[in-house]
């Protein structure tokens, strides 16, 4: 199971005002808000945590088929950080998802997996192999591998879990 989410920072600065009153309170838990305000760059931490929640939600949505907009119920925890890669966990409904997030000057990008070992099985996939099931959930029609697509502003990321590797 996989999920991904990309945030185009230039677009997000145009579309969202994370400093808007009440905005953070609808999305983040108290602990997460502490992480945001303790960080060197609160703006990047906002989108870093947001993209992890979105990526983890895509896994949940894939197997449960339940749609819900409940970012505050997916709680992020930092586990490790090397260079610009953040490793974390997202808890939701007593389940844990593992996340890996990279931050560049242009975007924030998170991948979530249900099984930590799946990080090694993630490959990009061409659009021509992607189809969507009746719930709108994408997969590779040749191999049946789960696919996750994230599109925001100038960026599109299409990944699959490659069972062969």
């Amino acid at each position, binding site marked *: 199971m996989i999920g991904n989410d990309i945030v185009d920072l230039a677009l997000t600065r145009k579309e969202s005002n994370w400093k808007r009153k009440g*905005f953070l309170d609808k999305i983040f838990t108290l602990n997460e808000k502490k992480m945001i305000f303790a960080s060197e760059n609160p703006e990047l931490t906002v989108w870093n945590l947001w993209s992890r929640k979105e990526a983890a939600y895509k896994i949940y949505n894939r197997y449960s088929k339940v749609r819900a*907009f409940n970012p505050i119920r997916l709680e992020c925890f930092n586990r490790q950080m090397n260079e610009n890669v953040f490793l974390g966990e997202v808890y939701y409904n007593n389940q844990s998802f593992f996340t890996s997030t990279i931050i560049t000057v242009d975007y924030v990008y998170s991948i979530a997996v249900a099984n930590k070992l799946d990080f090694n099985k993630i490959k990009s996939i061409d659009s021509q192999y992607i189809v969507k099931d009746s719930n709108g959930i994408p997969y590779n029609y040749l191999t049946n591998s789960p696919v996750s697509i994230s599109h925001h502003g100038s960026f599109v990321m299409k990944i699959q879990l490659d069972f062969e590797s």
Partner: protein
Amino acid sequence: MDKLQIIEKLKSIIKPYVKEDTAFENLNENTDFISDLRINSANLVDIILDIEEVFDIVIDNQSMEKMLDVKTTLLIIETKLNEK
């Protein structure tokens, strides 16, 4: 406030965030904010905050979870207005 007034107010709230103008023109109870109107999910938070301001109501997290389409959103706004 009757239902038509609520719909008109809701339409003016969501308009700035809509990416699919045709779907917006054809807006009805079954219109989905994400799959039809292509609203960015971070902007759903803005819509919730705008609804709270415009209608002077509080949207709790449980209600917010379900606010993905026009029908449910209208229902929640009506319920919260009646509770006032």
